[in-house]
Every structure is written in structure tokens, then in C-alpha cells.
């Protein structure tokens, strides 16, 4: 019963969150504070990335320390065509999803031969290889990255140059990511993924060839994060290898942990906390990561299910 109250509490909060996100542009334009539109866009893009990471980390037990590489690939899928004056949104999106899918398939097939700390290290190694590859390509700016002068072009269908349109596209993608993950984790496929996290040997003994399911999950997660990267490239109008540095991956893990791994809304809550801290604290000190670290320690110690669960508990126990 308390579990159910917990759950309904969480859903009401999520609904309120979505409503706020829907109406925010109105308030922001009323008070003429475009800065906050940018903050919310970045928040939602990182939320999508964290949601995609949560699919493998929270539900699948596959701890990747190289997930931001997919943000990078997705963003370069906007930047590199743009460098050649190719702005087709469809093409860039396909490149982002396809590129991430192929990268996840190849690296995942190798990573998933290992477990535990080795898995973490190999995901990290592949991501850093990609990072240094882009650092070394002078043509695309190397270290300095590339400026993207125009956003993805969808003809008359969508005008992403308009920030409010981009905002709602990002919000749409966020809702899509939530729906997708919600359906996947409860499906037959999702049960295999969660079962494998719980007890892989048992899964194999009852007859599941777990590798192919885990690899598929890894690819789906990478592609979903590629969507976030595509949005990020459009949003920032600038790309650099720094986007896929392993510290960025660490931040994604922090978001998942803060919000609650293996919960639907947790990663989005985690991204919100992260952005909130970054926005508020970085005004005060450049060492704001120190406070992020402290918060992570507190969460790990006292609220291992993350802030998402905590919020549900407060509302549910009313």
C-alpha cells in the first residue's frame, strides 16, 4: 500500500513537472528572462542523456563511464555536415542515430564480454579513444571544436532557429524518451534486461542467451543518447571533443545516482538537481563540484534510491 502511495505521489510530481515545462516559455517571455529558457533546454537535453544511461545502468546493471561519447557523436552529426553546408535535419538526425547505433554495437560487443570493473574501464577507454580522435582531427577544429552557424533544417515543417520551437522539440524528445524507456523496461525485453542485472547465471540457466539482449539494450541506450547529442549540437551551436570527455560521463552517472537509478523519472530529477546546483552555485564559487560531491555522498549514504524516491515519499506520506 505504501508502495502504491509512493508511486502515485511520484506520478503527480512528474505530471506537475511536465506541466511546468510546458508553460515555462510563456512565463519566461512574460518576464523577459531568455536566460532561463536556455537553462531549461540544457536541463532537458541532459535529462534525455541521463534517461538513456539509466536504461543500461539503472535497469541493466551495465555501468558505462563513457556515455557522453554519444552526446559527442550526436552533436558532431550536426556539426560536420554543417561544416560542409549540409543542414538537412533528417540527414543529421539519421547520422546521429546511425553513428551512435554503430558505435554502440561495435564497442558494446567488446565491452559486454567483460563484467564489473573491466566493463567500466573498457567503456571509458572507447570513449576516450573517440575523444582523442576528434581532438586530432584538425579539419574539424581539433581541440577548439567547430561553430555551427545554422541549426538543423526541416524545411517549412519546423523552424529550429526559433528558440521557443527548439524548446518544444526538446520537450517532445524528453517525453518520447520517457515513454520509450517506460515501455521498454516493462516489456518482455525489459524483463530480460532487469533479470540479467539481478542474476545473470540464473537467466542463462532458464534459457536466455543474455548477451544479445544486453547488447541490444546497449545499442538502444546509445542511440537515445545520440538524440540528446543531436539536440545539444543544435542548442549550443558549438561542438568540441570536450563534450565527450569522461568527466562529462561522470556527470551523467551523478545525475542518475542523484535521481535514483532504475526509476523512470529519477534521471530527469537528477539532471534538474545538477543544473540547479550548477546555475546557483557556480555564481558563488568555481568549485561548485565540491558541493555536488558532498550531495552525492549524502545520497549514497542516506537515500540510495535517489531524490526521485524521496520526493515520492514526501508526497505519498502526506
Amino acid at each position, binding site marked *: 500500500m505504501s508502495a502504491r502511495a509512493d508511486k502515485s505521489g511520484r506520478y503527480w510530481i512528474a505530471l506537475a513537472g511536465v506541466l511546468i515545462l510546458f508553460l515555462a516559455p510563456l512565463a519566461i517571455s512574460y518576464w523577459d528572462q531568455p536566460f532561463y529558457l536556455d537553462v531549461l533546454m540544457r536541463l532537458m537535453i541532459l535529462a534525455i542523456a541521463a534517461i538513456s544511461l539509466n536504461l543500461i545502468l539503472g535497469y541493466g546493471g551495465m555501468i558505462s563511464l563513457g556515455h557522453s561519447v554519444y552526446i559527442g557523436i550526436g552533436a558532431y552529426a550536426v556539426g560536420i555536415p554543417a561544416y560542409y553546408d549540409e543542414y538537412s535535419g533528417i540527414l543529421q538526425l539519421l547520422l546521429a542515430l546511425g553513428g551512435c547505433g554503430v558505435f554502440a554495437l561495435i564497442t558494446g560487443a567488446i565491452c559486454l564480454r567483460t563484467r564489473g570493473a573491466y566493463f567500466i574501464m573498457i567503456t571509458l577507454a572507447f570513449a576516450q579513444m573517440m575523444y582523442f580522435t576528434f581532438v586530432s582531427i584538425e579539419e574539424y577544429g581539433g581541440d577548439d571544436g567547430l561553430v555551427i552557424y545554422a541549426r538543423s533544417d526541416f524545411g517549412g515543417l519546423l523552424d529550429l532557429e526559433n528558440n521557443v520551437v527548439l524548446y518544444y522539440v526538446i520537450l517532445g524528445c524528453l517525453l518520447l524518451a520517457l515513454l520509450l524507456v517506460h*515501455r*521498454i523496461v*516493462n*516489456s*518482455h*525485453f*525489459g*524483463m*530480460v534486461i*532487469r*533479470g540479467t542485472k*539481478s*542474476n545473470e*547465471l*540464473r*537467466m*542463462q*540457466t*532458464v*534459457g*536466455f*542467451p*543474455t548477451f544479445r*539482449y544486453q547488447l*541490444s539494450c546497449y545499442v538502444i541506450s546509445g542511440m537515445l543518447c545520440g538524440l540528446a547529442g543531436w539536440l545539444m549540437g543544435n542548442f549550443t551551436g558549438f561542438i568540441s571533443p570536450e563534450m565527450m570527455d569522461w568527466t562529462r560521463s561522470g556527470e551523467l552517472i551523478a545525475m542518475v545516482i542523484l535521481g535514483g537509478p532504475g526509476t523512470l523519472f529519477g534521471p530527469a530529477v537528477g539532471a534538474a538537481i545538477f543544473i540547479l546546483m550548477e546555475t546557483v552555485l557556480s555564481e558563488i564559487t568555481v568549485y561548485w563540484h565540491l558541493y555536488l560531491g558532498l550531495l552525492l555522498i549524502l545520497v549514497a549514504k542516506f537515500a540510495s534510491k535517489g531524490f526521485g524516491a524521496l520526493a515520492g515519499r514526501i508526497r505519498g506520506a502526506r
Partner: protein
Amino acid sequence: MSEPLLEVSGLSRSFGGIAATSDVSLKISRGEIHAVIGPNGAGKTTLVALLAGELAADSGTIRFREDDITLDATPARARRGLARTFQVTSIFSEFSALENVALAAQAHTGHSFRFWKPAAEDAALRQGALEALQKVGLGDASERNAGEMSHGEHRLLEMAMALATNPVMLLLDEPAAGLGPEETTAMVGLLQELKQDKGVLLVEHDMDVVFAIADRITVMVSGKTIATGSPTEIRNDDRVRKAYLGEEG
């Protein structure tokens, strides 16, 4: 007698210097309970793990339903109809009892690349799982969290998970260990019912259970099989009495 379901010959596996299982050969037919007994560390669990494919054999062959499965991976063996239970409970502790069994059943309903519909709404899967739970006497516990069940219930859940895969052959590693007298009686009844259309390899320490239901018995000591025969033959076997049964008086 019919062709044996399972035919093991010369199966060996050692860990470092210890031969956990050495040169084991046995045959099990449909409709037969074949008990494997032996003192602690005799290599019984190692044998089960070799048969299920969790451990690779150093040498020897395993034939199941006339196919050589020695090199098959664990999931492939399971899908051929070979199911096992674990001596040390191995379940999905964060799932409900029903979900545990439904997941086992799901492994045998084609591929699981089904991404959209909730598995919990798969009526056929739930029905099959519920029947397996009822069969072992856990029908009323289906919604309980598996991790919070008692040791005895875990033994039964292990059985239900094995049954849900609709196996041809069961490898049971001490299914009755730690059960109370009533639960043990129920387990014996269940095993007798199951052997009607399946083969059963039963590892068991409780000699009353073994001699009550086994059709054949293999005795293992230090990785080797020292005798195989009917319960009467085993009871009267000198080597067995000396090496094993004698210890218990």
C-alpha cells in the same frame, strides 16, 4: 527400456589439483529418478553444473536426447529441455514469486525482442507461471517478493522456476534440503508425479527420501562414482557401506 534421455560418459573436471568430478558415466531415462549421493565435497554439485553447462568439462561427453551437447552453452541446453535447480538458492530476489516463474517460462516462448507490450499483461505467461507455483504449493504466495520468502519457500520457488520451462529432464541439487517433514513429504509426492513423463537427476542427502523414491542410485566419493545400481543393490554394496553409508551407522 527406452533410449536414455541423458547419457554421460567419462566426464571429468578439476579445479587446480582437485579432481572435483573424475570419469563419471551414467544414463538416465524418461520416467526414472536417478539419485546421486555422496559425502560433502564429493563433486555432486560440480556434476550438475557440468551437465547444465555452467562449467566446461575437461574431458568426456554429454548426450541429451541423442544429441551431443557437450559444447552447448547453458541457454541452449535449457532450451533443449534441461532444467536445473540450485543447492544455494539462485532467484531474482527483487521480483515477485510470479515474476520469477514467468521470466523462466518466458525463456521458452520464442525470442524476447518484444519491446512495447508490458510482460505483466501476458496472460499465457502468467497463467503458466501460476500453474507452476500451484503445483509446488506456492499458489498463494505468487505476489510476494521473492527475496523476502523463507528458505523452504525458496526451495519450492526453485522447483517452480524449473517446471515453468517445461523441461524433459530435471537436474535437482538438494531440492529438499532444509525442508520440514511436511514439506519434504510434499516434495517427494511432487517428484513422483514429475517423473511420470520426465527424467530426474536428484542430488540429495536425506537417505529416507533417496531410498523412498530413487529408481537408481549413483554413489560419488571424492569425484569418482564408486557404485551405481538399484536401491537394494546400493544398500547391500560393501564398498558403499564402507565408504559412505557406514559412516551414518
